[in-house]
Each structure stands twice: as C-alpha cells, then as structure tokens.
C-alpha cells in the first residue's frame, strides 16, 4: 500500500518531457518532488505563475510569491507571472498538458466530485471546474477509500459534481486505474496489495485483464 508520497512518486512517472503541469492542493503538490530531473517540465499555478520552483529557503519567503495552496514558493529561471484571466486562458485553451488533482469521489464514467458536501462542508471549487472541463489529460490522486473504509471509486458520484466524464487516470494508495467506457481498468497494483483487495475497495465496475503487475516506484 502506498502513502501520500508514494502516490505522488507514482504519478511523477506520468510526467513527460516538455509538459506544462498544473498541480492541485494536497497530494498533487508533492508530485513536483519526484519528477525525474533529466526531463524539462514547468509547473503552472493558477494564481499566476509559470515556472514555479521549490519552497523558499528559510528566511527568504516573499508574501507576494505563493502557489494556489497559498504556500510560499520560488520562481525558476524562465518563470513568468500573469493575471488570473491569463492563467485560465492557459488552462481553458489547453496549453497546460497535464492536470493532477485530488478528489472526494470518482465515478466509473470519469465524473469527479471534490468541492462540496451538502450541508456539511463547502470549500468551493477554486480552479478545479475550469481545470477538469478543459484539460485533456487529468490524473486524480486520492485514497481508494474514505476513513470509514467506503470506496471512493463509485458507480456514480453521490456528491455534487466538479466535472463530467473527464478523469482519465487515477492513482490511489492501492492501485493505478484507467477510466474506460466500461469502467475502471486496473493497470497496476500497489506493492503488497492483491487484486482481491482492490476489488473489495472499488464500488464501481473494476475491469481486470490478465495478470496485473505490481507497480515499480
């Protein structure tokens, strides 16, 4: 089974040379730490920076330089700053190659819910609705089940949707899955996790074809 850093590490393998990548808050933010350093990648943060670098060295934080998670960051050579309208022109205009974000629920048809629990919690969608409606390449980073052990990979989302039929790939603590027209296709198992355990943790239709290899991270 993977921890959050493990999920981030596995997702980092999906990042290719020349990609502009938008990382959501939470596990996705960790992905930047694990991208191979022999490829060229630029991170976009929707609050207005392209070419985002690591956190600043202690004492060098700049209140005017944060990421979408409101964390202090740095800018790499070749970076640029821009306004919010331009930032979403990048996103809506499909100039960002890969979007990695978290989810509360994903459905077997690719629907995603991650912004609201009616009557309980309303954080808002932030940039997620623009991202999922626009991006062609969306990877969801999430735990396979909630704290009560209930599956978050569902036949149908129960929470208000963030976007419809948009998720392409999911990396959880248990598995890597692709969203196909027939449901969740199991691509890889997390180390030490059996196909049966993944089946048990997946409410939506899980497709298992042939032998499913353990992921290498």
């Amino acid at each position, binding site marked *: 089974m993977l921890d959050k850093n493990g999920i981030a590490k596995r997702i980092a393998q999906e990042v290719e040379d020349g990609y502009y990548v938008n990382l959501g808050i939470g596990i996705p933010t960790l992905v930047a730490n694990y991208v191979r350093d022999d490829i060229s990648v630029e991170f976009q943060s*929707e609050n207005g920076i392209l070419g985002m670098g690591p956190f*600043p060295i202690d004492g060098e934080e700049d209140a005017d330089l944060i990421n979408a998670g*409101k964390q*202090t960051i740095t800018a790499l050579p070749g970076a640029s700053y821009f306004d919010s309208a331009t930032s979403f022109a990048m996103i*809506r205009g499909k100039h960002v190659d890969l979007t990695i974000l978290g989810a509360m629920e994903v459905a077997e048809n690719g629907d995603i819910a991650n912004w*609201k629990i009616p009557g309980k919690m*309303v954080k808002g969608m*932030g940039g997620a*609705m*623009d991202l999922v409606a626009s991006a062609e390449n969306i990877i969801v980073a999430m735990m396979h089940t909630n704290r009560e052990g209930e599956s978050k990979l569902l036949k149908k989302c129960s929470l208000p949707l963030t976007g419809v039929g948009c998720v392409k790939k999911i990396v959880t603590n248990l598995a890597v899955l692709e969203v196909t027209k027939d449901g969740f296709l199991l691509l890889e198992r997390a180390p030490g996790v059996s196909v049966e355990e993944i089946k048990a943790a997946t409410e939506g239709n899980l497709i298992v074809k042939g032998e499913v290899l353990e992921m290498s991270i």
Partner: protein
Amino acid sequence: MIRKTVANVTDALAGVKDGMTFMLGGFGLCGIPENAISELVRLGVNDITCISNNAGVDDFGLGLLLQQHQIKKMISSYVGENDEFERQMLSGELEVELTPQGTLAEKCRAAQGGFPAFFTPAGYGTEVAEGKEVREFNGKMYILEEAFKADFAFVKAWKGDAAGNLIFKGTARNFNPCMCGAATITVAEVEELVPEGELDPNQIHIPGIFVQRIFQGKDYEKRIEQRTVRQK
C-alpha cells in the same frame, strides 16, 4: 495627463454605501487591498456583496468584514480557509455564490471589456450550470456566463503613478488587473506611488484609463497564509 491621485483612503472610498457590490482583488491574503478593507470596516457599510476569489481568514482580509457581519453575499471560488465564513454560510446568515475561478476572472474581464456574456466549458454538467444556457460548439459543451456588475473595485498594486497606471508584483497580481475598470469606480492602492513619467510605458500592467482613483497605501501587513520553507 489625467490625474487620479487622491489624498488618502477616506477620499478614495467616497461614495461607498450600504447595499453596494464591491470587487476586491487578491488571492488568499496575497495582493489584497488592505487599506480599502480597513476603511470599509471603519465606515461600517452593511449589506454589501463582495466579489473576491477568497474570503480571507478569520482575523484578516475579508474576514474582518465577516466578523462585523457587513457582508450580505459573497461571490467567490474558494472559501476553505475561514471558519467564520463557513459558520455564517451553513447557518444561512451569509448568501454565497460559488463560481469557478476561471469564470470568476473572466466575468471581471468581461465587465472591464464591454462583453455582456461569453461561453465557457467550466461547470458544465454541475450545479454551476443550473439555470444557465448550455450550448455545443465543435462537439464540446459550454455554458453561457454573464459579466459582473459592481459599484466599486478595490485593487492593490505594487507601483502606480498619478495617471493611474499600475504595475503588480509576483503572484500578488492575480485578480487585481482583471477587476480594474470592471466596476463603476476602480480604486487602486499602491505600495509605491511614483512620480509621473517614471514608469516605463512598455511595462505597465494596467493603463490608467481603467482606474478612477489611486492613493499611496500604508501599513501593509502582507500576511503570509502558509509559510512553507526548505532548509538550505
């Protein structure tokens, strides 16, 4: 040159009234118009509608207006950092309209640029699309969103001049440029009001035509919401 300079925040906010709609720049606590917010608290204007990406934190930014119950309605994309906000919203005291962040930015820009409406894919198939026109273009679904209407826009810039020209800094730029000229009156507060002619006309982010009043802000706290660092 048409001069936009006013003496202080009080002059800058002249005309602000109960029941008005305000746009406020900033992302989280980054690039927020601190002076304008303080003055709104001091003035005690009530029943206001605020268009702002976030709602501040409990004791800073728009949270200060929430504490005083001055806000009737918030139009935002993300409000997850503010407990008082969540309390007022869940109790029904506060009306909340959540809007996708890119749509929020573009509804500002539409108001700035005289576009009444535009089609965007964000929110299609979700609650956000309810009651809105939906249309297919080239096999993809979009919803029709309308421009904002606001009485005042309060923005914060790094440098500005008497002509109202503005330059922002780093990611403190965010929504600020989009809101300039998007309300009847745009009020810009700047960290540094420079002598006329000092800004390079090639490097101005917002031309003065989009700004009605500009003043030298003071006592900026520029609070950091999530201080994250690494070791050397």
